[in-house]
């Protein structure tokens, strides 16, 4: 089912949680809402799920306005941040809940409920835990049970609030892949909220980057990483070097009241100046981290530090040591006017 969000705004008291949001989600898409905490991503998810009401704007599911529909009539499955499993019910009863509370005339027979619940538990590979209680499960297991419970009501849309937020790194990685596979199997339109860029880039079809209640960029993982639309996206996703003055960026003529943004891996290092746009620097620090080598250089005559990432092969071809005088030049950069860069998060 497709989702269209038109001009949605939401205030909490004086705090503007969402500021005129417009977004389209295609049927069967897996979309990530990415941003720092307080950027409004969870509010947007809760509005789609019917757990909050927007102040203004329209929300269309498959072309139909659902703003006045209750949460229970939206056919939406919601997976809560802390799972919100019913702690007094067994895993089986948790998953069966949505089926048991249906009005009598459309409720399944007990045998059918049983069959469906076990089918779902098999889907999330936890059939053997049916009689346990939530407190007896690990975080990853709870997460999958919460998902099975949401899927039990056969939702057309699946919403996940920080689905991996409370898990440790190893389990997170596993569950991420698992969620991707599950989505490819079921093809339910799914939206998940995360503050973890890696998670968003790895799992989703498209990423919506949000900041201060506004959408900064919508695009495929590759697009938001390779072609950030705003300074915020540049800084939030991946690392970036900022060049503030023309002296430090001889390769561009546009630095009046502007800042140049350059990714660390987009910088070339050479022993001699290629041409007049090369910037002389001194190597300050060299650190090999797995397959990449991180080089920190200081611009001559200032204390500004630039971070550069080289692949191991590249580094081995032309090794560097502290104190080496070298020249740098970006392969790719982007310039933003200063006023655009006002509202940057500290990274």
């Amino acid at each position, binding site marked *: 089912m497709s989702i269209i969000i038109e001009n949605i705004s939401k205030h*909490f008291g004086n705090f503007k949680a969402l500021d005129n949001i417009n977004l389209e989600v295609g049927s069967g898409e897996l979309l990530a809402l990415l941003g720092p905490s307080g950027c409004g991503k969870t509010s947007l998810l809760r509005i789609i799920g*019917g*757990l*909050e*009401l927007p102040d203004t704007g329209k929300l269309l599911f498959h072309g139909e306005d659902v703003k006045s529909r*209750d*949460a229970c009539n939206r056919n939406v499955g919601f997976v809560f941040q802390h799972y919100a499993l019913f702690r007094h019910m067994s895993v089986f009863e948790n998953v069966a809940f949505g089926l048991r509370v249906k009005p009598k005339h459309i409720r399944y027979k007990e045998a059918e409920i049983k069959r469906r619940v076990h089918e779902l538990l098999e889907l999330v590979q936890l059939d053997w835990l049916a009689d346990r209680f939530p407190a007896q499960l690990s975080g990853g297991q709870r997460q999958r049970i919460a998902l099975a419970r949401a899927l039990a009501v056969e939702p057309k849309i699946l919403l996940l609030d920080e689905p991996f937020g409370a898990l440790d790194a190893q389990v997170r990685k596993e569950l991420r892949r698992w969620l991707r596979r599950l989505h490819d199997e079921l093809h339910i339109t799914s939206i998940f909220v995360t503050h973890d860029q890696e998670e968003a880039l790895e799992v989703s079809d498209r990423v919506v980057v949000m900041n201060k209640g506004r959408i900064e960029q919508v695009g495929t993982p590759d697009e938001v990483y390779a072609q950030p639309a705003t300074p915020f996206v540049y800084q939030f996703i991946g690392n970036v070097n900022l060049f503030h003055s023309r002296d430090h960026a001889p390769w561009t003529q546009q630095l009046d009241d502007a800042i140049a943004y350059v990714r660390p891996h987009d910088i070339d290092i050479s022993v001699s100046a290629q041409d007049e746009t090369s910037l002389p620097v001194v190597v300050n620090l060299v650190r090999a981290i797995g397959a990449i080598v991180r080089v920190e250089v200081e611009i001559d005559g200032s204390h500004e530090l630039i971070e550069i990432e080289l692949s191991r092969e590249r580094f081995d071809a032309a090794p560097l040591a502290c104190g080496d005088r070298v020249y740098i030049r970006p392969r790719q950069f982007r310039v933003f006017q200063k006023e655009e860069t006002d509202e940057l998060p500290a990274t």
Partner: protein
Amino acid sequence: MALSSPAHSRFRAHSVLPGFNLALGYTLLYLSLIVLIPLSALFVKTATLGLDGFFELAVNDRVVSSLRVTFVCSLVAAVINAIFGLLVAWVLVRYRFPGKRIVDALVDLPFALPTAVAGITLATLYAPHGWIGQYFAAMGIKVAYTPLGIVVALTFIGLPFVVRTVQPVLEDVEVGVEEAAACLGATRFEVFRRVIFPAIYPALLTGFSLAFARAIGEYGSVIFIAGNMPYISEISPLLIVAKLEQYDYAGATAIAVIMLLISFALLLTINALQWWASKRGVR
């Protein structure tokens, strides 16, 4: 609750959970009928007395001395409870000894035991020939039927307050902080004075105020042991009852209003204390 939609949304945040209007509506109705309207009757009645009438009734020797007895005895009892309550809380949190769980459960006895039962029992125990009273009598001290007896009764009913407010806070004091202080060379007493006591001080004060507030209004446990001699061991609640028995509603109301105002002031103090405690980050 016929609130229009826009006013409604400003009054409360939206929620998908149902039943707010019904639940809050019923809450407010029941609160008004049982508590607010009856209590306001007291103030309306006072208003009909006029200021002069009120003072005439309120400021006479018997009333003033009853208030003094009530206050002084409540204060003494609350202080006793603050000291011993702190010790009891400390012992219950920090030490292990056989029967601890039973002792811990028993601390709440004054909450659960009807005040009249406490009253007759304490009166019997502290009477000149009672189990405890005889020892005091031998020393020439009369406990029952004197203000001292009132203090005993008020100490009993206020006992759980300090223990129960200090206990959880004391449990939360991190051992690490104490160990850090000890490593820095503080003696055990200094650790208590400089590290532990500041952490539990707001809770202690809250417990003290609660015990004090409870003691001021107490009636049932006191009247049996107090002797109830006007000017000496007559507490204000008893004076209200005495006036009522003489159908002196105005007089009873005047005393009640004074007590009620004192109670409200204490309630505000307690709330402020708790606010202060939470602001200081004392969990």
